[in-house]
């Protein structure tokens, strides 16, 4: 059990800075997720916590102990790798026992701990097999078992599910979440998959180009994204972004092509200002009472069963927009739909720096 403090942690390779002044306090027992597109530095950050990469600047501490100069083994952590990194020549049992053996834990204690962990993960039946003989999901469990058996104060996960097929991924995701709740060990999880991030994390860090875009709970990130990047990254299908302008009186946004939508608050201090409007597909709905103000010309309709995705053009010669309607709808190509959205679900961003605009 431990807290993790990151204090202005930076990383650069030679002159190239890949992470800039990361500050974060991860609470004891918390499950946090670092999420971002590939190359944003999320794995590097995790590896710095693990001790596999040197921290160029700043300070990292685990459980009130500054760990900058400690070897990975001395940091009381365990890590699950993307490709599992099981020792191919050792049996499952030995894979799990190896770290304990090195630590000098007595044999019977090792056996007890491995067996108990195997029971938790339901891998007791193949302790004697070699990793080669296991399926992807089973290997993943063994990799987690190897982490759990050490009883570390921090778990680090480096995209552990990305080598699994979609169905298994969903199942393992749920198991990881349950396991973490049961063991209550502080966990840091890196992924590029926003669904994983949203479902697993108590709190999320969205990284982009080595900078923190936003820190917060999944709901905060979904409801009040701080930047257009976060808004576009969180949610699937991703948010629609449309160029627009705030009206003279600051109560509406005007889209090119003649559509207008009302705002929740008075934006008169930004009157006439060009903005980037973000609207999630699931927040838009067909509303006949709004026919005068909006039109959406349908281009392609995708039926997902539970939902129907309607792609089209918002306004007359305006921008592309996707609407997600629940259930199965019969909508033909070329049909014109009136749309509306709850004003509080409309996000305004500065078109230049992507920051959220407030009234």
């Amino acid at each position, binding site marked *: 059990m431990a807290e993790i403090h990151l204090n202005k942690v930076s990383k650069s390779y030679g002159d190239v800075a890949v992470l800039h002044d990361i500050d974060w306090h991860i609470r004891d027992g918390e499950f946090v997720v670092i999420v971002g597109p590939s190359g944003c530095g999320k794995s590097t950050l995790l590896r710095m916590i*693990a001790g*596999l990469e040197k921290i160029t600047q700043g300070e990292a501490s685990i459980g009130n102990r500054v760990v900058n100069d400690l070897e990975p*083994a001395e940091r009381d952590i*365990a*890590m699950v790798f993307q490709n599992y*990194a*099981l*020792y*191919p020549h050792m049996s499952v049992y030995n894979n799990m026992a190896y770290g304990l053996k090195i630590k000098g834990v007595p044999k019977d204690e090792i056996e007890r701990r491995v067996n108990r962990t195997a029971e938790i993960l339901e891998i007791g039946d193949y302790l004697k097999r070699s990793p080669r003989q296991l399926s992807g999901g089973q290997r993943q469990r063994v990799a987690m078992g*190897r982490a759990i058996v050490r009883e570390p104060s921090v778990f680090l996960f480096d995209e552990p599910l990305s080598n699994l097929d979609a169905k298994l991924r969903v199942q393992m995701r749920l198991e990881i979440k349950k396991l973490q709740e049961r063991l209550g060990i502080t966990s840091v999880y890196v992924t590029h998959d926003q669904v994983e991030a949203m479902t697993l994390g108590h709190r999320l860090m969205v990284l982009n180009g080595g900078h923190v875009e936003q820190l917060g709970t999944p709901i905060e990130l979904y409801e009040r994204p701080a930047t257009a990047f976060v808004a576009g990254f969180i949610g699937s299908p991703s948010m629609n972004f449309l160029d627009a302008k705030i009206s003279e009186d600051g109560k509406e946004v005007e889209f090119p092509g003649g559509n207008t939508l009302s705002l929740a608050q008075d934006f008169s201090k930004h009157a006439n200002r060009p903005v980037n409007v973000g609207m999630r597909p699931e927040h838009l709905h067909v509303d006949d009472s709004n026919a005068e103000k909006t039109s959406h010309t349908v281009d392609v309709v995708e039926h997902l069963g539970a939902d129907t995705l309607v792609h089209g053009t918002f306004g007359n010669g305006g921008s592309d927009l996707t609407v997600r309607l629940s259930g199965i709808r019969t909508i033909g190509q070329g049909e014109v739909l009136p749309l509306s959205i709850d004003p509080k679900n409309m996000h305004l961003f500065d078109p230049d720096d992507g920051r959220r605009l407030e009234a």
Partner: protein
Amino acid sequence: MIEHRPIVTFVSHLVLIFGVAIIAFPIWITFVASTHEAARMVQIPLPLLPGDQFFNNLELTLFKGLEGAGAPPVGFMMVNSLIMAMMIAVGKIAISLISAFAIVYFKFPFRMGFFWMIFITLMLPVEVRILPTFEVVANLGMLNTYWGLSVPLIASATATFMFRQVFLTIPDELLEAARIDGAGPMRFFVDILVPLSRTNIAALFVILFIYGWNQYLWPLLVTTDQSMYTVVMGIKQMLEAAEQSPDWHQIMMTSLLAMFPPVFVVIFMQRLFVRGLTETEK
């Protein structure tokens, strides 16, 4: 090419059988010669079927040696050859493993410089550096010792290079997992790298054992004492046996014996050998 035309099968078998016959016939003659008395081997025509003296000849060759020429019993030479070949094979593998480990996993100044220095020794086999090497071995007092026979042949660029390639295919995550598990460099080497290179070590062992066993020129130079003779040079010595006609039955028996250990190693380690050279999954 998978075809099932009988004529193709017939022709390809014919070619193969012909090839096998060319290789096998001399070996057959060697075997036949080792089963007859000395007198029979100088009569014409040469026998093509085995005689009944195999075990007599075997005993004679292994334990008594060539009577007239005063050559030592072949049993001795076999042991010498075995020790030399083992020292060369094991020594080469041990040193190459360690140097490849250093080159791949440690950062030190002139790392690539050292690698290329090792690599350049490929151009310097024993035959090229025979005089200086002899000088060194003589000055170190290693003439007529097993060390003298094996040490100059132990350094191996080929093996170092091969292990380097093997280590490069081992994913970095394994090293990282081992570091998190608390394994130091030597533990990682012993517990992870060496077991993972097992098949490659076996393949190399086969090649190097045969290389060591077949050494001729170098043992000829550094051994003057009969008790240090190796089998391969022993055969040559027997041919030069004084004024009498060569004892073909014993010479052939010696050849047969000299062939046996490499064949045994190849057959015994065949599976590992093939896996070591072809397996890529780590």
